[in-house]
């Protein structure tokens, strides 16, 4: 029915330059997301600085980063979990369990090398995460149920193992608490570990086959199976990574605060999820960038740091924090919408 000349005509009708322009524009929009959020962070920083000049001092920025380090490391793992359309509510409990076991071990063997403590905590987290991954990937239990269930189990184990006691500062050797106070290459160890984690993740997510396949699984699980991507193994891997990071953060947390409690980091998972969501990780799966997660964690870290600095009533703090997060999220939508609208206006009809 159709004949050749027609096809050629049509091919000519498509402007050859348009395609390239469209591509660059859409690439631009995608970058814009994090930029918008970053702009919001900068604006907020200036505002706080205006109210309290000690905000943008080297010391305070160091404090801010130190306090945001653990959050930002956890947010990385959570990003991968959410990218696969999952969620992990157990990380606070995993963190507490690994922190408690490590603290107990360290207090019993004060000569233990800090590196060994870090490895021990990470291994415990890895074990917890692997178990979860097995539930999710092999048994096909929905992530929200599996992690909710294991949240209770891990928390209960933490209480049981500690016998209701805390491990206090005087029971921890200086070498152990030094993990959080020491520095590597002039950078505080916590911040250094976070930087390394971000570098590794950036590489892993963008430049390795496995990293990209995780996104593929989140973007379209059925297609992933049809094209032979090992979905189960990847899901397992994602929860194992999340667990390992929680375990690592458990050690960092305990070292930082020089105290291990049964209820350490209770409810912290929601803060981590909030950081991811602010950073543009889509709950629908498949979307999430390392840079976005970084900005999201920084924003939350900044709120936690700045509100005590502004002399606002403590009773207003929660409401203000919520309001600012709401504003940041809405501002992002507005920016995106106006970019989309401009994009439409520019289209030739």
């Amino acid at each position, binding site marked *: *029915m*159709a004949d*050749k000349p*027609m*096809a050629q*005509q*049509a*091919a000519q*009708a*498509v402007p*050859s330059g*348009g*395609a*390239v322009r*469209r*591509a660059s524009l*859409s*690439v631009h929009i*995608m970058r814009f997301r994090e930029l918008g959020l970053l702009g919001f962070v900068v604006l907020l920083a200036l505002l706080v600085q205006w109210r309290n000049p000690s905000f943008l001092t080297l010391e305070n920025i160091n404090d801010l980063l130190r306090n945001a380090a653990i959050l930002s490391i956890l947010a990385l793992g959570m990003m991968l979990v959410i990218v696969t359309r999952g969620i992990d509510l157990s990380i606070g409990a995993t963190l507490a369990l690994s922190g408690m076991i490590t603290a107990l071990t360290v207090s019993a063997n004060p000569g233990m090398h800090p590196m060994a403590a870090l490895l021990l905590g990470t291994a415990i987290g890895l074990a917890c995460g692997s178990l979860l991954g097995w539930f999710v990937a092999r048994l096909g239990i929905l992530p929200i149920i599996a992690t909710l269930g294991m949240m209770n189990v891990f928390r209960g184990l933490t209480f049981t193992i500690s016998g209701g006691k805390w491990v206090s500062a005087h029971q921890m050797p200086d070498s152990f608490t030094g993990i959080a106070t020491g520095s590597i290459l002039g950078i505080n160890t916590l911040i250094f570990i976070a930087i390394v984690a971000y570098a590794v993740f950036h590489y892993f997510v*963008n*430049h*390795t*086959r496995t990293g*990209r*396949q995780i*996104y*593929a699984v*989140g*973007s*379209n699980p*059925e*297609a*992933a*199976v*049809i*094209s*032979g*991507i090992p979905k189960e193994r990847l899901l397992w891997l994602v929860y194992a990574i999340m667990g390992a990071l929680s375990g690592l953060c458990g050690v960092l947390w305990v070292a930082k605060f020089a105290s291990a409690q049964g209820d350490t980091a209770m409810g912290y998972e929601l803060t981590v999820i909030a950081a991811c969501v602010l950073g543009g990780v*889509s709950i629908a*799966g*498949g*979307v999430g960038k390392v840079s976005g997660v970084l900005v999201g964690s920084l924003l939350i870290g900044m709120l936690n740091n700045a509100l005590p600095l502004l002399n606002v009533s403590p009773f207003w703090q929660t409401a203000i924090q919520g309001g600012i997060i709401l504003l940041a999220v809405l501002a992002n939508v507005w920016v995106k919408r106006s970019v989309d*609208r401009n*994009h*439409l*206006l520019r*289209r*030739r*009809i």
Partner: protein
Amino acid sequence: MAEFVLELNGITKTFPGVKALDNVHFRLKPGEIHALMGENGAGKSTFIKIITGVYRPDEGDMLVNGRKVELKGPRHAAELGIAAIYQHVTCYPDLTVTENIFMGHERVEKGTRRLLWKEMHEEAQRLLDELGADFHSRMTMGALSVAQQQIVEIAKALSANAKIIIMDEPTAALTVRECEQLYAITERLRAGGASIIFISHRFEDMYRLADNVTVFRDGKYIGTWGVHDISNKDLIVAMVGREVTQLFPKKETQIGDEVLRVEGLGATGYFADINFSVRRGEIVGLTGLVGSGRSEVCQAIFGIGPRDRGKIYVEGREASIRRPADAMALGIGYLPEDRQKQGLILNWEIAGNITLPALRRLARMGWIRRKAEWSVAKMLAEKLGVKATGIFDLVGSLSGGNQQKVVVAKLLTSELKVLILDEPTKGVDVGAKSAIYEIIGELAAQGYGILLVSSEMPEVIGLSDRIVVMREGRITAILDRSEATQETILEAAMDDSTRETGASA
């Protein structure tokens, strides 16, 4: 080299309640394009999934290059050089085009296993250029139209260096121009030494491309012929099991008053200055190249798409349509083009799907009356000849064509005046197609005004009383039945000069 690159013998596959394949055979020669045809639900897609290792057959064996293989999974099939473009696009909407093309066989640096992005982007762009694509390899897959996604799927098969390429209804979502492109590509693949299995419900696809044709019916093997050794009529009999006489049964109908008129309809960035009308008993064809904005216009009329200018009149009265329920209350029905995403709830039963738009009427004070609901569903499903055991079968387990019949049935639950049918025969077999044409004709005869969006020229020309042609968001011509030929339509669809004169009805 073996005589056949691919040989399947005595394949049987049973799903709970359905014998999808029953002792079927298939042989593919090197460098051959082999058409696989059959009614909806004949088992073609299932057969393909067995070849690609997605399903495992209950019985039968498979030989690749003369050697017997037992597929362990999709990856195994890919290693053997088998690639498939599935009926329902299986892409990763959040990833870039490049990644979609290279997923599963990424280029990595030796040693470090680092992904070679630059190389992959360049290679992807080269493949896309070769296929005549008008988009960039760094774009996000989800931003592409269905046709563009199809091109990516082909590029994917090309990049995998597949020796056996299977295309399951690749032309279903394509317009004429794109079909031509696809034919050219397919021929080039064959010239490059690949063997191709081509599934389609369009006869022209088969005649243009295939050397041989194999027909399945109801999961059974019917026969294999040389394309030129069998007449069109015999082929249809082989497929359907009976004769289908007239393909376009254009009934002479009484054309009455205007039921739908749009004036100056526009949506920033999508379409502008849309003026046309539909009269009682009239079938108005709406056609154009892919992306010309036909679906957007229809969806704006139906109250689901964006619209910022213009007026819509129903039976001469200006209508305010802000959501589909408004349109339906005014007697406008819309059959969406993507039945899987927009038309159906796949894990619901046939009955629930059919009655969803009409639930309010089938309920008393919000209380659903099941008896009434089921009798309506049964009546409509039977009227349209849905192939299933009962109205409580899950829609997701039906074949594509039967799913489409369920979508059509959904429209008929309401008291409508205007039907907007967006690609109603996409992926539908000849038998069902003629049934749908017959239904369209009957509906027109009953006094419905019908707006028929289609990319298939013969369908538009064969059925329409008038034809509206769109190009890049504007109407470029409104042709009468008498003046409409393929040439005039295509000229309007592609000519730049008509753009200022935007005709009105």
